[in-house]
């Protein structure tokens, strides 16, 4: 088997890379694919806690690279979806303790056993970024519709175009009420600026925070708007032609009550 290795990156920190990686990973696994999620953020591991797998780690990425264990021994299997495994980052090592060549090697090993290898990239464009990108075949760039993440996304897109070609874009945390009153860049504005292919839109959703608290990514909540958005993204990655819907604001309580009463 030779799987697809996809790096999830952003430049700017805090825009939802890890959340995106976790949800897409689960989404692909739900659709029956074998998925390995790799946390490449050495020194600041977070994928484990977002996935709710933090108590089951025995070995980590740097152990594999140092030859202290086999890749298979370091993989933590997700009990909710046995076809999904996570390779955790080391929390005590430095990003510089790994080279791009070594990352390439680990990714190549994983590609033999999995349909998808999703690499959660650290923020920034230094060594950690170069490591995460080294073994990838494709890239997904995550941004939010704010000025600094969009600027950093542009920088990262430029760097990726030199190595992996055009990445695809996910615009995260879109607040529709703000877009509607002209106080937030809309999807077309962001695409005008960044000029890349759109993979999906994810609405701003409190459920993501709750999911993080519980260690149960939001895609497991089938009623959540963001969970549905991640499921559509996973299906697009699988080649399904899923249209990108216009996001609607959920409105406030009064708005929803009004809707129920008057069936507007």
């Amino acid at each position: 088997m030779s799987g697809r290795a996809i790096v999830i990156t952003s430049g700017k920190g805090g825009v939802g890379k890890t959340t995106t990686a976790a949800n897409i990973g689960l989404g692909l696994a739900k659709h029956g694919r074998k998925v390995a999620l790799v946390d490449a953020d050495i020194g600041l591991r977070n994928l484990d806690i977002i996935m709710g797998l933090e108590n089951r780690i025995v070995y980590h990425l740097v152990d594999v690279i140092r030859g202290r264990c086999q890749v298979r021994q370091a993989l933590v299997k997700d009990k909710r979806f046995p076809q999904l495994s996570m390779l955790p980052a080391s929390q005590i090592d430095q990003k510089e303790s790994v080279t791009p060549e070594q990352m390439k090697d680990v990714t190549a090993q994983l590609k033999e056993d999995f349909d998808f290898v999703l690499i959660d990239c650290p923020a920034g464009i230094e060594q950690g970024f170069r490591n995460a990108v080294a073994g990838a075949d494709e890239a997904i760039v995550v941004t939010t519709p704010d000025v600094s993440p969009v600027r950093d996304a542009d920088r990262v897109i430029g760097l990726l175009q030199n190595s992996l070609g055009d990445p695809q874009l996910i615009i995260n945390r879109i607040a529709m009420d703000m877009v509607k009153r002209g106080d937030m860049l809309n999807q077309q504005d962001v695409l005008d600026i960044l000029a890349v292919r759109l993979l999906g839109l994810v609405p701003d959703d409190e459920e993501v925070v709750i999911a993080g608290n519980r260690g149960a990514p939001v895609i497991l909540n089938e009623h959540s708007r963001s969970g549905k958005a991640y499921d559509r993204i996973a299906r697009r990655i699988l080649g399904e032609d899923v249209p990108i819907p216009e996001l609607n604001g959920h409105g406030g309580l009064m708005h929803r009550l009004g809707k129920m009463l008057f069936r507007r």
Partner: protein
Amino acid sequence: MSWDTIVQRFFGAKGSKDEAKGRLQIVLAYDRLGLSAEQMEALRKDILEAISRHISIDVDRVKVDFQHHQNPAEVVINAPVRRTRRPAEEPKPSEAKQSVG
């Protein structure tokens, strides 16, 4: 939204996203060129010198902008002309917009 903003909006103030888009387009134009502030300043000076050899311009009010939203990107130089061709007349400042591909 603060009350101030709500009141301003009521009287027709526009949302802030156009400002965000405009500022991003300018900053990314520079980012993508990979020119530093000093290099930009050197380019501006050279352009001004070249124009000044032929027409008198108001150097302090000259603007050099990169516009990336059209393809290919354009360098737009906005140089207010100080004097028209007839130096006998009272000098009237007028805006001359010049586009260099």
